[in-house]
């Protein structure tokens, strides 16, 4: 663990919080300590209204005149801020159910749990800033979804959608993203949380479509430690979670080739994301989610500045 992430709850500790809402809160609270500003806030010249100062607001936006007059802290909201619509698209396909199995020490959450926690954390963060958050869980189509709302109580709806039992079918990125692009009425931010194990061409085509529609894109790539390190021993029969394939092999004999393929995959994803000006973050299921969130939000904040 890095020095900074030592502050964060370990993934197994987060995983023990059964309620997603609470889990997200734990993650965000851990993350916020490392954040200096909200990454989701942009700058606009159109003054809209004052609102009360909350911790984390940029001090440069504090209306000092109001403080001088009324002795209370308020910040100026501009038109752009109140129009942020965060849409969270969480991959709920079968491949997201991998968690390392009983051999994982310490136990790890499934990729879906990690993705859902991250999505809920982002939703909680955005809602706490008055942004509208919508969410959808997909596999080959959009399954559970909630429209974007700004009320803070909307987090429960988001969590409910994320916790709805899934079909766990195969992923169909182009179809889902096309549907999302058509369903979203306004420009906003779309965060896709997925392992990206599927039609990548279709995925980036979908993302391209969203970008064309003016959306701000972010890709949170969730992969299990095993999928990144492939530290298997002994004769093993690998059975595909999504692909109808299986392979009996000595994993160590194939490790070098596997890692090379994964490295190529990650490189391809990064480069294509960069080409779409899509933020990209790779998250291991074995790392503290707060650290991952901080890393993502910090990067967003640096990009936003």
């Amino acid at each position: 663990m890095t020095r900074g992430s030592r502050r964060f709850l370990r993934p197994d500790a987060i995983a023990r919080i059964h309620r997603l809402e609470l889990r997200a809160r734990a993650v965000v609270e851990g993350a916020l300590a490392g954040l200096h500003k909200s990454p989701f806030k942009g700058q606009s010249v159109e003054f809209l209204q004052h609102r009360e100062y909350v911790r984390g607001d940029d001090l440069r936006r504090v209306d000092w005149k109001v403080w001088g007059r009324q002795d209370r802290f308020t910040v100026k909201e501009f038109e752009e801020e109140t129009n942020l619509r965060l849409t969270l698209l969480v991959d709920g396909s079968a491949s997201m159910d991998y968690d390392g199995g009983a051999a994982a020490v310490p136990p790890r959450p499934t990729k879906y749990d990690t993705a859902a926690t991250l999505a809920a954390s982002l939703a909680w963060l955005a809602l706490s800033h008055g942004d509208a958050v919508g969410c959808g869980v997909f596999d080959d189509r959009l399954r559970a979804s909630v429209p974007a709302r700004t009320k803070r109580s909307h987090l429960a709806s988001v969590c409910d959608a994320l916790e709805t039992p899934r079909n766990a079918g195969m992923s169909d990125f182009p179809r889902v993203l096309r549907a999302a692009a058509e369903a979203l009425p306004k420009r906003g931010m779309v965060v896709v949380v997925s392992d990206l194990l599927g039609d990548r061409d279709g995925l980036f085509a979908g993302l391209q479509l969203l970008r064309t529609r003016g959306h701000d894109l972010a890709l949170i790539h969730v992969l299990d430690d095993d999928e990144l390190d492939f530290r298997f021993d002994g004769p093993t029969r690998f059975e595909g979670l999504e692909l109808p394939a299986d392979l009996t092999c000595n994993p160590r004999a194939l490790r070098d080739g596997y890692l090379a393929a994964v490295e190529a995959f990650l490189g391809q994803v990064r480069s294509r994301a960069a080409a779409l000006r899509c933020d990209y973050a790779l998250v291991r299921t074995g790392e503290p989610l707060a650290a991952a969130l901080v890393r993502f939000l910090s990067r967003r904040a640096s990009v936003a500045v």
Partner: protein
Amino acid sequence: MPTLEFAPLFWWGLPLAAAPVLIHLINLLRQRRVKWAAMEFLLASQQRYRTRVLLRQVVLLALRTLAVLGLVAALAQPRWRPAGGIAGGTATSHLVVLDDSLSMGDTTADADERETDAAAGDTRRATAFDRGRRVVERIAADLASSSGRHRLGVAVTSRLAAAPDAPELALPFTDMTPGSLPAVRDALGRVAAGDSAAGPREACAAAQRLAAGIGGPRVVWVIGDGRSRDWLGGDEPAASLRQIAADGVTLRLVDCAAEAAAANLTLERLDVAGGVPAAGVLVPVEVEVRNDGAIAVRDVAIDLREDGGGRPGVRIDEIPAGGTARRRFDVRFTTPGSHAIEAALPGDSLRGDDVRRTVIDVAERVDVLLVDGGVDAGADARSGDAFYVATALDPGAGAATGLRPRIVPPATLAATDLSRFASIWILDVERLDAAATTAVEAYARGGGGVVFFCGPRTRADLVNATLHRGGEGLFPVPLAGAVELLPDAKAATQPPDVVVEDHPVVAVVAGQRNPLLDAVRIERFWAIDRGFDAATQGVRRLLSLRTGQPLALEKACGAGTVVAVLTTAAPEWNNWARANPSWVVVLLELESHLAQLRRRAESVAVGSSVTVKLEAGIDEAEVDFLVPPDAAIVRQKAVATSGATLEAVLPPTAHAGLVEARWRRLDGTTRQRSIAVNVDPAEGRLERVGAGRLQAALRGVPFRYDRATDVAAVAGDVGGRPLALPLLLAVAGLLLLEQAVAYAAGYHPVRRSSAWSPRP
């Protein structure tokens, strides 16, 4: 072609080679199952490295299978046999040289070993030969049960020594299979320790030639009792064994003797000790016994038999440890012919040397030739030297000596057949012609005894020139001249003229002053050349004069003996023969001494041939030999050798006992003769050489030495090159290679790190 051979264990272990495959299959069944999301990457890797992975797996499986096969092969006593030679192909030939000499009959044992005696229907004490036979049976059984082809041939030392160029094998080379073991046992049952003295020393040269004629891998086993006399002293058998080893033959020596020290008495000698073997005459016989034990033996009884009949035996009070003792006894045979005497000791651990036989050819009378220089042909021979000598040798009625003197003049000497005379007395002869000289010399050199008396007729110049010839001739000393023995003027009383020297002929009158010999007066004698050194010329004195000059001398001539008495036989130059009993005594002793070689009892050693001489024109040329132990008849033709002599030869004997030769004469009468065949008494020397001295004696000869009880399976020494060690080293190499390939193929467990590091 070269062959690789394994013990049967190899074929039983061969299925183990399937173990790596089975383990691989079992591991496949024990594989863990993982539901995997990133199959596309795994499949991509598998597609990319399929060939490499498969190749490594195949190589790994092959290495493991080879290692198992190699281990099974290494444990299966593998041997590499080069291509075979002319005979035997690739089979390993084992030649067993089994000592069947007399000493192998020793029953000294470390434990109470018994051997079944089928003939007697009982058991008896086991001998060293029995132990050797069991060793051969064990060798045969091991060869029959081991892998590869093995041939076994067995030869006994007596037959190898008897016919070294074409030996007869007790068991011809036979392929060893379980089915051939009964034939091996039968062959071994037909051989036994015999009476022969032929052991490894005599047989190894033949064994070397036998082994050299066999192709392919060879092993020579020498199985014996490890006696010092077989291995120490002389070049053999070390030289033959060295050659055997140089021929590339594996050499195994097996010692069948008991560790316990053998205490053995041996009848060393049984022989006539003088006298005249004539009918009615007492003949002294001497028996000698050797004690090879570590302690003295007392009160040893010796049983005696004459012509198969019992007679009183003799006793020896004490025989010291490692020493010998002698005992004399007299025999008297009233009839002429061959008479056998047998002496036997009480049975001990080695019985073969406890019996000894001798044969005395008793004549009616024994002829003695007197050549009197004073007798002309046709003249009365009852005067002069011959009369006094003849009277002493054959006193007449009441004093039978068995001797019959024949008096002839010197002129008839050359025409006389000297071979039938026990001794020749040449009495004051002036000259012997060349033919006579040659005949007498031949007689002496052939073992005869000749005595010269010198007197007034003797001519020193002729004696020195024709008979002495500077020491090359018959006469012992060169004569100078006849001189008088003057009285000793200074002595108050005259000392005796004759001084007795240390010689067996005069031993009877030696010792204390003998008044009979003291009464002998020598007036005249022949002096010898002053420059002659008797001692350096091998001349020995019998009698001397009071002046220190010799009176009677002896010299060996070839195999015979010549005595020269330098005074007259008749009381012409002395008074000895005149009514002095010592004259008769000394002459009889002299005659006995001269004739002892020709009178020696007939005895040959076991393994020697027996020769009977016949007379052409008198005897038929065919002899029947009755051979011990069962008097089997062997008929032999007599062949001419020289002159009128025929010889019939019985091939080398194998058993001790009496050989009786019978033949017919042309006049229809039958003749017979007995010859005693005795064991070599040296076979009774049972001292063991021991492993240490054997190593020293065979320095430079690679061999393996085992005690009979330690000869186990021969699997480790069956010829060919053992491959167990190279195979084990190869297996070790394979396992190292297997580990390396397994590591490269990812079959080695990894050490997992508990800390994770996030990817940037």
